C-alpha cells in the first residue's frame, strides 16, 4: 500500500488538544505524527519517560492520549513497556485477550540518550516488540535547558552557559541511532519535522508494524531551549536536513539506507544562525568554531555515506 497524505490526515486524532506543552512545541508535533503511523482501529498502549511530554500530556485528571497510557519514571519508560508487552504476551497465551496491540514509547533525549539508555538498551536487546520514539530536542528542556549527551557542540545551555571561559557545550552529540543500530534490531530510523510529514508518517508506520523492536530518532526543536520564534520550526528542521546536520536514514535489518541527499549541501551556519543558542558563534572571534562544527558534520556525513554504501 502506497502512502496517501490525505488518508493519513483523515485518521482520527490520537493525541487530543488541551495538553499543556508550550505553544509551538516540536515534541507534540512528533507525538501526533508518529501516532498517525498506526492503522485506524488498531489498539495501542503508549508509555512515556518523565519529561515535558509526559507532565504536559497527563496532568491529573486530564490525559491527552486517546490510547491507554502509562508513565512510571524518568529512566524506565522502556522497561515499563517491556512489562506491558510481557503482560500482553501472557494474557494472549492464556487466552484472556483476543485483541492485538501495538506498543509505543516516547522519551526526550534526557530520558533516552542519558538516564534511560540502560533500560532502552535492555528492552531492545531482548527483542521487545515495541517502538521507541526519541523526541530529540537536544537538552533537558523539562528542567530548563541543561546540556544532555544529545546537545550539539557549542550550544549555550544552562549548564554550559557561554562566558569568557566557555564556548558552550564542549563535546559533539552522541550518535544514538548508530548505538541502537548496533543492537541489531530490525528497524532504526532518523527523521524530523518536514513539510507534509511523509518521511515521519512512513517511518512511524514501518517502525510500529515491524515485528520486534524499532527505534525512531526524531529531531524535535524546542522554541524556548533553542531560542527561536515558535513559528520557525519547519524552516529549522528543513535546514537541519539540508546542512547534513540531521540526515534522514533507515537501518533495516542491519542495512543502512540513506533516504535523502541534499542536491547542494548548505553550510552548517545556515542551521546554526536560526537559533539563539548558537548566537555567540557568530561573533568574529568565534568563526573558527563554526569551522570546527562544519568539520564534524562533514566527518559524520562521510561516515554515514560509508555505512550506506555497504
Amino acid at each position, binding site marked *: 500500500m502506497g502512502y496517501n497524505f490525505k488518508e493519513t490526515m483523515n485518521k482520527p486524532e490520537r493525541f487530543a488538544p488541551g495538553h499543556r506543552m508550550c505553544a509551538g512545541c516540536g515534541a507534540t508535533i512528533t507525538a501526533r505524527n508518529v501516532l498517525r503511523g498506526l492503522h485506524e482501529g488498531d489498539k495501542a498502549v503508549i508509555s512515556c519517560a518523565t519529561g515535558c511530554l509526559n507532565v504536559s500530556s497527563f496532568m491529573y*485528571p486530564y490525559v491527552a492520549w486517546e490510547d491507554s497510557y502509562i508513565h512510571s519514571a524518568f529512566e524506565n519508560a522502556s522497561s515499563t513497556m517491556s512489562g506491558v508487552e510481557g503482560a500482553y504476551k501472557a494474557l494472549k497465551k492464556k487466552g484472556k485477550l483476543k485483541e492485538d496491540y501495538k506498543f509505543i514509547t516516547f522519551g526526550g533525549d534526557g530520558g533516552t540518550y542519558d538516564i534511560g539508555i540502560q533500560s532502552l538498551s535492555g528492552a531492545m536487546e531482548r527483542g521487545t516488540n515495541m517502538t521507541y520514539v526519541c523526541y530529540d530536542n537536544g537538552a533537558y528542556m523539562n528542567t530548563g535547558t541543561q546540556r544532555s549527551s544529545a546537545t550539539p557542540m557549542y550550544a549555550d545551555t544552562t549548564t554550559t552557559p557561554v562566558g569568557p571561559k566557555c564556548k558552550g557545550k564542549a563535546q559533539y552529540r552522541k550518535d544514538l541511532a548508530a548505538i541502537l543500530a548496533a543492537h541489531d534490531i530490525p528497524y532504526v530510523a532518523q527523521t524530523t519535522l518536514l513539510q507534509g*510529514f511523509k518521511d515521519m508518517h512512513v517511518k512511524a508506520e514501518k517502525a510500529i508494524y515491524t515485528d520486534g523492536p524499532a527505534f525512531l530518532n526524531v529531531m524535535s526543536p524546542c522554541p524556548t531551549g533553542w531560542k527561536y520564534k*515558535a513559528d520557525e520550526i*519547519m524552516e529549522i528542521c528543513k535546514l537541519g536536513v539540508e546542512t547534513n546536520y540531521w540526515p534522514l536514514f533507515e537501518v533495516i535489518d542491519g542495512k543502512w539506507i540513506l533516504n535523502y541527499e541534499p542536491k547542494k549541501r548548505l553550510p552548517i551556519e545556515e542551521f546554526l544562525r536560526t537559533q539563539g543558542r548558537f548566537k555567540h558563534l557568530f561573533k568574529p572571534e568565534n568563526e573558527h568554531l563554526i569551522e570546527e562544527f562544519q568539520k564534524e558534520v562533514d566527518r559524520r556525513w562521510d561516515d554515514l555515506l560509508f555505512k550506506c554504501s555497504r
Partner: protein
Amino acid sequence: MAKTDITKLGTDVAWQDVTRGNTVVGCGTTKQFVTGDWTNVAPVIDEEKCKQCLLCVPCCPDSAIPVKDYKRCAIDYDHCKGCGICVKACPFGAIKMEVKKNA
C-alpha cells in the same frame, strides 16, 4: 469500569473521591481543558485562499486543526495556543495571525 467523570475531580475533591492511583478510565480528557486563552493572537483562515491541501494540519502542536471527511474544519480556538506554525506552513498564504478581539 465506567469512564472516569473528570468533572467530579476538580481541585476541591476530597481524598475519598480521588480515583485510585490517580488513574483515569477513558482517555483524551484534555479536550475538556481550555488552552485557547494562553494566547492573545490566533490564526485566521481565508477560506477563499485555502485549497484544502491539509499541509497545516500535521504541523499543529495542539491538534487544533481538525479534519473530517478529508477536509480541514474550523480551527479549534479553545485549544489553539497561537504559535503561528500553520501560518508559515500554508503554501497559499491563506492563514494570518490576528490579535484576538476581547470577547
